[in-house]
């Protein structure tokens, strides 16, 4: 089972990203959950959402405390708190224009702890969507970094869930994010 924790701000579509990952996995015949942090939701406040993807039925119904993957949608949230509980061989997918070595310092991440994948999702979202909505880009980068779901499954759920005009631009965004996310 892969456990994914996404960090963002209220209104950025963090929960939607977690749900789309889960839906893509279900489409592939896997078992999955997508759910929000069970806390207050306020526009702009830091929020969490979670996804679990597994080859076996999932029974657990608590939040994720030791994630395999952490995705950060908003660069202003980058701090040691986002890596809390991350497994030693965990994967970080970060929205940032900084270099991985600099990011390690910001996150207080020791050498040999986790693998960083980085994408300037904010810039990419502004270019394609005209707004800094990074949820689908980070979701796509998570898919690339983990191999948990395929790009084509993500494309399929976006087409299914979004209205056509929104889907079209997001499809472009997820394709580019999938290609351009870099591993440290």
């Amino acid at each position: 089972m892969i456990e994914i924790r996404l960090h963002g701000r209220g209104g950025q579509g963090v929960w939607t990203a977690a749900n789309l990952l889960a839906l893509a996995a279900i489409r592939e015949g896997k078992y999955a959950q997508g759910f929000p942090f069970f806390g207050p939701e306020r526009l702009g406040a830091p929020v969490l959402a979670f996804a679990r993807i597994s080859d076996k039925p999932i029974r657990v119904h608590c939040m994720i405390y030791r994630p395999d993957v952490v995705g950060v949608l908003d660069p202003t949230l980058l701090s040691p708190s986002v890596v809390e509980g991350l497994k030693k061989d965990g994967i970080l997918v970060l929205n940032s224009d900084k270099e991985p070595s600099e990011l390690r310092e910001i996150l207080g991440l020791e050498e040999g702890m986790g693998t960083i994948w980085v994408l300037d999702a904010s810039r990419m979202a502004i270019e394609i969507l005209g707004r800094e909505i990074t949820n689908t880009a980070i979701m796509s980068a998570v898919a690339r970094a983990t191999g948990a779901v395929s790009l084509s499954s993500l494309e399929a759920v976006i087409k299914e869930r979004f209205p056509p005009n929104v889907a079209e631009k997001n499809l472009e965004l997820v394709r580019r994010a999938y290609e351009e996310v870099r591993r440290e």
Partner: protein
Amino acid sequence: MARVEQRRIGMMGDEAVAYAIKQVEPDVVAAYPITPQTIIVERFSDYVADGLVRTEFVAIESEHSALSACVGAAAAGARAFTATASQGLALMWEILYIASSMRLPIVMVIVNRALSAPINIHCDHSDAMGARDSGWIQLFCENCQEAYDTAIQAWRIAEHPDVQLPVMVCLDGFVVSHTLEDIEVLPDEVVKEFVGERPLVRVMGHEGEVPYRLDPTGREPLSMGTFAMYDLYFEYKRQQEEAMRAALKVIEEVGREYGELTGRYYGLIDQYKLEDAEVAIVGLGSSMGTAKDAADELRDEGIRAGVLRIRSFRPFPTETVREALKGVKTVAVMDRALSFGGPAGPLMMDMATVFYGLKEGPTMLNYIYGLGGRDISTDDFKAVAQDALRAAEEGVEGLPVKFVGVRE
């Protein structure tokens, strides 16, 4: 009945319930559409607006009125559904008793949420516990799949001639209601066939035997909810109790029939690795899934743990629980609600009764957890099981009530 082809989709608990009710297509859905309402009736109202169901949807001014409308509809012979949570259920309290005493097979989904104050929208079982003695059948679900399945089975249980009681389908707020999971759904026509038409029992009316419904044409006159003093009231209550007991068998029968159709069998309880267990965790709802994972981890560490999930809380399956825990020496009873000033949590009081007066019974400890949505993890459950084992070894006097995950 042969196994049918099912479709696998991702849905939140709320959506899954709305989808099940769309497939059942009751005659009337009455609901108060504002907080603490959930997505259930919002999604269902979309189905109505899109013309996908012929249900009469009544958006009404309060939960008290919502259930009253269901009482009226069900008394007229219709299938009636509503959904609510926390304060909404509390506001219905008066009408809960009327629905069950008038023997109206209404189905209501409760998204279990804490009661104010302080204001809180998250999960605990206080709302359902407040309705415990109101004469409704209460079935607690573990996940989205079970919420969907139970929202279908509930009609057959409620409307069974031996039962004729309203059913509450309880699912944990947020933990199930707002969690998207993979579920398997049946084709519409299979659900329609499974629930069939609401059968009306026949009773003695003013002018002979009539179907149990109010007839506005007056051709089959009948009164309901009339006056009964000490000459008759007690007999009514006794009959309700008999119906509750009859429901034990019906819940199992319907669960079995549904299992033959879907491959998912349901009963009064859900047992997990109890056969050789030295310690059992007993509880209600979604956290029991987490407890099952904890049991597996404990077994990897050499502790034989098991889980007993109570699905039917009312009626309470006393015999079945006793049988399931035969041979288990230590039991941790999990309560997601408090009975303020009571001897223990509500589930614990029932569990103590199960073994009362027997020569041999397990050592039981009560753990209060998860109030107002406080999360409970696999590690927490492991700690509970270990604590219970340790306490049992040291010797337990009386009935210890402990709190999990609360600041002291």
